[in-house]
């Protein structure tokens, strides 16, 4: 019986009890993944303090300030800041995403959506050498799948897995933009079809073969301790002032009159018995147009067409007259257009019946 009814019964003689079913709290259902087993193992995340401590270095602060100065809104730097996180850890831990969101001034959930949308952010630790094989059409035509099978057998793992010693991870990825060298692979950030002079190289006309994969893997094993290190953002650029108005930027905005005002282009003059007709191509910023006619060695204004007009007729014009036009854009006067000599207007072609 409901508690308020219990109270009411004492006072009310003819109480109609309407609620026969008590409201019960809904018991928590077991997580089906706990019952049946997870498909994916949960990735152990490093402690928050450790993540923040690793990201709290002067170099990273400097890089972040530089990145934030490039975009009018801090969120623009989100992809790059996530790259910095990946550069530190080799993958993006959850706390790293939260840190990146804070740096860029956006919601952590937004940063999570971005970090999971793009496939190059790793959400679990990868091997020291990330071997990414292209499986797209050009490479597939040239036999990418047998090669991937070969590597999988050689390393004893499947695509997406890491070897037990943490050395290699194989990934199948989409087009790597080197179809001419297909089949193609990336070793971490380097395109590689072979080892030349002790270095990974992608030479024109060479493709990946079983033999060259053997050489590349041997090279990787030999270079565990002196792996070629790339800056995740391909190095820094010195000298830019950033985006005008962005935090930390010193750049000034573009002035409106950095370029000379537009002259009138494509002036053509055609004359017939009604006078000379001028046509031209007008720029949208014109505020005034003046047509001038050559009179001996001097120029005399003959009219002012409207800025939206398409043609101007000088009634006294005849074949051989020389015209030019001068445009004004706001307060700036452009240089005169090229001189146009009036030609005979072709007679209108009558339509053949």
């Amino acid at each position, binding site marked *: 019986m409901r508690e308020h009814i219990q109270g*009411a019964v004492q006072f*009310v003689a*003819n109480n109609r009890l*309407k*609620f026969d079913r008590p409201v019960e709290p*809904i018991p928590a259902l077991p997580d089906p*993944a706990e019952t049946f087993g997870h498909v994916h193992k949960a990735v152990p995340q490093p402690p928050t303090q450790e993540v923040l401590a690793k990201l709290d270095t002067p170099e990273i602060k400097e890089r972040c300030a530089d990145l934030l100065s490039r975009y009018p809104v801090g969120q623009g730097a989100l992809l790059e800041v996530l790259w910095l996180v990946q550069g530190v850890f080799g993958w993006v831990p959850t706390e790293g995403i939260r840190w990146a969101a804070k740096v860029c001034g956006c919601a952590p*959930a937004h940063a*999570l959506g971005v970090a999971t949308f793009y496939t190059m952010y790793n959400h679990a630790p990868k091997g020291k050498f990330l071997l990414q094989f292209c499986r797209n059409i050009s490479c597939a035509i040239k036999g990418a799948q047998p090669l991937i099978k070969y590597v999988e057998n050689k390393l004893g793992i499947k695509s997406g897995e890491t070897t037990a010693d943490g050395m290699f991870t194989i990934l199948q990825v989409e087009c790597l933009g080197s179809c001419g060298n297909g089949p193609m692979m990336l070793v971490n950030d380097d395109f590689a079809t072979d080892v030349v002079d002790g270095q990974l190289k992608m030479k024109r006309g060479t493709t990946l073969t079983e033999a060259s994969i053997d050489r590349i893997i041997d090279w990787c094993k030999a270079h565990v301790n002196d792996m070629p290190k790339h800056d995740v953002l391909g190095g820094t650029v010195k000298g830019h002032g950033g985006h005008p108005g962005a935090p930390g930027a010193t750049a000034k905005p573009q002035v409106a009159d950095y370029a000379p005002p537009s002259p009138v282009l494509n002036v053509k003059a055609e004359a017939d018995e009604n006078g000379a007709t001028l046509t031209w191509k007008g720029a949208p910023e014109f505020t005034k147009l003046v047509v001038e006619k050559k009179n001996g060695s001097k120029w005399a204004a003959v009219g002012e067409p409207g800025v939206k007009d398409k043609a101007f007729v000088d009634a006294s014009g005849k074949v051989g007259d020389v015209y030019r036009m001068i445009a004004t854009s706001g307060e700036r006067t452009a240089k005169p257009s090229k001189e146009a000599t009036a030609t005979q207007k072709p007679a209108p072609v009558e339509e053949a019946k």
Partner: protein
Amino acid sequence: MSNYYNMPKLPTENSPKVEIFVDDKAVMVPGDTNLLEALKAVGIETPHVCYHPFLPVSGNCRQCLVEQEGPRGRMLVIACYTPVAPGMKIYTPASSARVKNARKATQEFMLVNHPLDCPICDKAGECTLQENYMEAGQNESRMRPEYGKNYHGNPAHQFVDAKGQVRGGKHVDLGPRVLLDEERCVQCDRCVRFMRTIAGSEQLQLAGRADHTYITTFPGEKLDHEYDLCVTDVCPVGAMTAKYFRFQKRVWLLSHTPTVSMDDSLGANIWLDHADGRIYRVMPRCNPEVNRSWLSNTSRLAFQNFDKNRLPAMDVHTPAFGSGKVALVAGGTCTMEDLAAIRMLKDSLGDRAEIFGGSLLKVGTPDGIAMSGDPVANRAGMKLMGFADVADFMKRASEFETLVTVNADLFGEDPAASSVLEKINCRVALTPFDDATAKKATIAIGVRHWSEVQGTMVNSLNILQKLNACPVCPDEKLEPAFQVLSKFAGCKLQSAVEAFKKVGEYASALAGLTYDTIKSTGKLLEGGEA
């Protein structure tokens, strides 16, 4: 979805009418809105999933396709993102097989990875997919089990079921009030847009991409916001469900009473969904001027206490009001009819009675969604009816010998300040609940709660709104406050209609109005400031 999508423009009564051609027939539609709303205005329903009139248009469900005649021939466009232009030519499935097939194809794609679990889905009966399927569905399934489904879901929640199929997360605990079924999600991103644009707190996001997309909060964080239950309203499918309503009732067994929430002076328009004599849930009722489609958790979950701790009805004769001064104090949830009855009682008592209204609770600030922050719901109505503020009464409490409180829990709201009221000899409390004031009263009379009465209220936007009685009163002997009060005044009002006539007598702004002249979205009072 881009952050830059704009809110749809909705037609109003003042929209200019333009002529467009729908299926080669000329129709006049509102000219300042999108095609979907314009077609709706002339009675052509367009199925849609992601479009919501009060959320930015993201146009990702591709269900509302129509054909438009353009310079390059007839093109399929989405009705929700196409602005109405005079003279445009539109073809709907009524005349265009291409539109019909395109909608059918989209509907089929939408169901490819959607579980077929309507019998146990809470949304069944009010599910957008079900509705669309009846119109545009592929009647015979072409999908075969061998093709498999790729259920959407967070990798961390995925499991392999008894049949060997990888399944998405079920009843994922998204927050204190909302559960998520990842498989049922159709990625319309309405909840994401709601949380970002309306609630202003981007707690939800679609993670991943392609058919691995899934809705999630940031790992380790919970969806927790004053308006988070609205995501269960905007969810077109059964992905987001409210914990309080989950598995409580099939929706087609519910009856709906349109009324107004009296928790707040904005007077959010609500539906009281009830069955077998109790309220099961409260849903926002669309009112573009007041609360749009939103409702705060406070207002939504308040119903759980409506039938608890109630006072029984008491058949009392008119109490002896003595010979001293009488204070009549109306609480925030008094309807206009209650206020009119208090005026009647004052008139019958003569000059020694004074009327006050309000509450001792603090007034907050409007949140711009569905709360004005003022706990006195009918404050504007009290102004119209000439009620003084309750603060005046508290200052001069010692002058009075009798105190009548109507729905006003003064002792509960501010126990310290109210202690002076105990010196008043006769304290009559009319209240639905056995609250602190009822406990301290010399006579406590039970009345009906605002959800159980018919009446009107004036909200903070000066809109007169109608309350309807939901048949959930626990005791049929309980009467509305205005009936009890008018009986004290010696002239018992028999119905709310009669009481509303009295309202017109006291408040000139409402003179001449009847219940029929008040629309379901209320009536804006002109110059109603008393």
